[in-house]
């Protein structure tokens, strides 16, 4: 390898890093613009309601399904592990803590990303390529206010609510398997839960849900708003939005779990 090859290699890495930094900066400025616009009137309540329905109500079925089965399978797995140590009585708190602190917020966010986040990117992307966003701008109306802010605010409201529903259904799913199928007493399942689950666990889960709401709405709106040309551009933007949101959810979850919410 000659000195020229090494220089070329460093130049390539440098160019990649600069382009990554530029991209991240662009994304943060987009979020900043949206966050500032949230507090500036006029507020678009009708659009906010529409997005709450789109992100929230329409995601209910998938949340109920994943919540119940997650609780059931978790209860089943944990029960057999605990039985080896003769600690079946701890099934309730084990299921509840896993769901409230970790699985509820993460799985809810991943499910909403798959169901609504991808649709959000596609919708905004199509508006972009069919010049509907330019039409808004040409009417002296701020597209961020009309398209992005309602989604971010709706996600901030909807994600903690969906997570709470997921948690509740998951705990009852665990109850069904642990108590009804495996024979643990209902009193043990719930009384132990009351002892071990603290308010800060619930708060930690809801903080996570809030931050995931920002991540999903931000990434999905950004990818749609800056989509490439044509159907291929929208399809790439949608895939990229789902992948990026999901990866960021998992990374941010670990970060929050280890640094902020010990």
């Amino acid at each position: 390898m000659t000195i020229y090859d090494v220089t070329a290699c460093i130049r390539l890495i440098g160019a990649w890093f600069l382009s990554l930094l530029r991209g991240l900066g662009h994304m943060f400025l987009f979020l900043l613009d949206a966050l500032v616009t949230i507090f500036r009137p006029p507020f678009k309540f009708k659009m906010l309601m529409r997005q709450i329905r789109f992100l929230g109500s329409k995601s209910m079925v998938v949340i109920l399904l994943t919540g119940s089965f997650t609780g059931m399978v978790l209860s089943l797995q944990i029960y057999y592990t605990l039985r080896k140590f003769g600690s079946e009585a701890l099934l309730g708190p084990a299921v509840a803590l896993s769901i409230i602190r970790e699985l509820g917020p993460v799985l809810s966010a991943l499910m909403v990303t798959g169901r609504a986040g991808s649709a959000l990117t596609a919708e905004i992307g199509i508006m972009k390529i069919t010049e509907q966003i330019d039409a808004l701008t040409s009417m002296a109306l701020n597209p961020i206010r009309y398209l992005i802010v309602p989604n971010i605010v709706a996600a901030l409201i909807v994600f903690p609510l969906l997570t709470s529903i997921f948690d509740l259904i998951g705990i009852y799913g665990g109850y069904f398997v642990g108590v009804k199928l495996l024979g643990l007493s209902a009193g043990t399942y719930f009384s132990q839960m009351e002892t071990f689950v603290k308010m800060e666990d619930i708060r930690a889960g809801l903080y996570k849900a809030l931050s995931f709401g920002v991540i999903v709405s931000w990434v999905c709106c950004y990818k749609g708003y800056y989509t490439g040309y044509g159907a291929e551009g929208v399809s790439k933007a949608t895939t990229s939005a789902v992948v990026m949101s999901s990866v960021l959810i998992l990374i941010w979850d670990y970060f929050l779990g280890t640094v902020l919410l010990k």
Partner: protein
Amino acid sequence: MIEIVNLKKRFGKQQVLTGLSLRVFNKELVAVIGQSGGGKSVLLKHLIGIIRPDEGKILIEGVDITEVGGKELDSVREKFGVVFQEGALFDSFTIHENIAFPLREKTRMGKDEIDARVAQALEDVGLKEMGGKYPAEISGGMKRRVALARALITEPKIVLFDEPTTGLDPIISSSIHKLITKTHKKYGFTGLIISHEIPEIFEVADKIAMLYNGTIIETGPPEEFRHSDNPYVQQFISGSLEGPIELL
């Protein structure tokens, strides 16, 4: 009045506008013709401040929009109505809601007044009974008419048309051209039409300007333009493959 002075714009390695200058006087309807991919739509997006030029000035009634931003730019944009290439109607709104949208968002008009004005606008463009339909339920020609109604609903001083008849059959195209002429007479707006519909556009516009190589190479009234001795103009009008114009 619209005055464009020495406008330059580069995208990557491609110099799209190379020093374009053009004047559109009040109440004049000017058509900009030129090759597909030659920068006509880029020019239109400069006029509404969606794209910023690398160099040059765009004066809209004396205000240089390349120098302003925020509320000042928005107040210039309020003078515009824009008819986009495919209509750019909002998919999730009905035709009525699409036309009412600028009034609802930009004025303090009551619902009854807005409804009356939308009904009048729909009648003007010959779509009286279509208000309840969604854009996906109407034809391409109807979409352009709705887009024209939406652009005119605020009675703007300036209306920009981005290839308003592209992809339409000749009969629908002529009906759109007639509608542009009719509404221009009725509302008296200053208009700029981006088009390559030749010779139909000669019947619509007061003045024709030809864009080639990122600049305006010829302007003049339709009759004068038709008989221009500029070989680029003659090749473009005749649609001949032989001549000085390079295919893009």
